[in-house]
């Protein structure tokens, strides 16, 4: 996915409006692109600030007057400029300010929960399932079924890329490599948001 495409989706990404595939692609792109990271951070901060602004109170006669002026064909250049440069942005500002408040009444963390949002959870589920294998009386066949299905999903979604450079091989022999050092190094490498 290109930077241009990602930037066009950032607003929807922040508002959690992307579908599963788009969300994956945007997050994967953000991991590698510092420019888009900064853009995303900035956009999110702007939206947060807007969310904190109080809604301006419009006078009761605002809308009738606006309608009358729009309907009249004798709008002067001054009023047209006023409409375009002030009233439209003001309305947009008002809408942006009201929107988060309206949404928070349904989905705010303090109020309740959003059901069944699909998100990137396969690796976590797989880790959990592998942990469950350690338990006595765990059913290894069903856990193995779930874990292998998760591995297939992740592989199909390119989530295994750092480990899964698919290379032709002649045969399988158990190896002693653990990837432990690589694991820690890579772990620190991707923590781009938490410099110490």
């Amino acid at each position, binding site marked *: 996915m290109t930077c241009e495409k990602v930037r066009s989706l950032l607003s929807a990404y922040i508002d959690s409006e992307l579908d599963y595939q788009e969300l994956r692609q945007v997050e994967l792109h953000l991991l590698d692109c510092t420019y888009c990271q900064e853009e995303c951070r900035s956009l999110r901060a702007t939206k947060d600030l807007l969310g904190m602004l109080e809604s301006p109170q419009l006078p009761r006669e605002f809308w009738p007057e606006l309608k009358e002026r729009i309907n009249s064909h004798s709008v002067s250049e001054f009023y047209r400029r006023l409409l375009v440069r002030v009233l439209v942005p003001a309305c947009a500002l008002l809408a942006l300010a009201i929107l988060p408040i309206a949404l928070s009444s349904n989905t705010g963390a303090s109020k309740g929960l959003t059901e069944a949002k699909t998100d990137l959870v396969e690796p976590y589920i797989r880790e959990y399932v592998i942990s469950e294998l350690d338990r*006595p009386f765990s059913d290894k066949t069903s856990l193995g079924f779930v874990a292998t299905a998760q591995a297939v999903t992740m592989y199909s979604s390119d*989530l295994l890329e750092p480990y899964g450079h698919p290379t032709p091989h002649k045969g399988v022999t158990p190896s002693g490599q653990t990837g432990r050092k690589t*694991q820690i190094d890579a772990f620190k490498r991707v923590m781009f948001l938490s410099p110490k």
Partner: protein
Amino acid sequence: MVKRLAAVTILCLLIASSLATLQGPRTVFASKLPLPERSGDISFSDPEVAISIIEQVAEKSGSVSYKATKTVILWHPSGTSACISNIIHKAPNFTKTEYLPSSASACGFRTVISDGKSTWHYEPSLQVVFHMPETSSLPGNDKSEGSQKTRDMLLIKANYKISLVSTENLVGRQAYVIGLEPRYPGNPSRRIWVDKEYPFILKTEQYRPDGTMSSVSFYNQIEFFPELSDDLFRLDIPPNVAKVELPVSGDLMPLDRLEREADFPIPVPGFIPTGYVIEGGILSLYKTFPAAHIRLTDGLNTISYFVSPGIIRDTGVQDNILSMSDISGANIVKWSGKGYDFTLVSEVDQLLLEKMARSVSVAHAPGKPPQKPFSQYLSRFFYQLFLIDR
């Protein structure tokens, strides 16, 4: 007459002893199970009987070699998944499972082989083989499997009412039916069928905290201690199949060491469901999911708590808590706040997980970048807004 009787008796004794010899290891396990064969002699009210049975299962089930066909059915919010598999296990470490294609499982033929050191998963439909070293084979891993089993058994005895429910015939064998009911609400319960002769689970039924069944697995046919050649556990795959190394979880470590290795402060929940203990943490790693994984257990079940430095979500504001379910039967709770992404995965009741989620307080973000001045954001916003007309 006396001579004939003596001869018949001697012959019978010889046949009986030779049969016992031929049966070999069976008698080893059968003699260690504590219960008499006749159900009339069983004390159903004595919990120690049931505890004794499951202790032997926990300790010795891996020592039973077998060849079997098994069915697994999982019920989840999006439907039902089922699969049939052929399994061979040669004690103590070799296991081969072939998951057979079925419309109910939405998967093709799949082979998984474990030799105790590594697990190989061959997916013919993708032409790929996944490889993962087993945690216990990692160098420097001082985790003692025996001590973990002992701890889990102690926890199970403390957190579950264990009872011998009945005896049943199953897949041509006699089995004890053992119930494990949680003492604390919000936990799944389980019912297992243990073979009378060997310490081996023939069937498992798992129930959600609300009492509905979440999964059942049972053997359609099983043969104990068959002749199994080592060659059966060799994975023969065609050339030019891609090999993918799956990330390894590493060893469980104390939380202070986990924090040092993760290199960021790890907020822990203030609330932990009754009966659960933190058994340690591991570094979990996938490209997009660097996370500290803290494992909690009540002996029978696991709660996995993942903390990850957030991707772009460094606003300091607590996001929505999102709850969902997975085909594994696990509940998943996700949320973000102050530069972290959090995930809880468990079969424990969703309300308990959400309570855990709300009890996590973040003192400060993991290396939060400096905030830009308010005026800078505001001027940028109005600048962008007024570009509409240009």
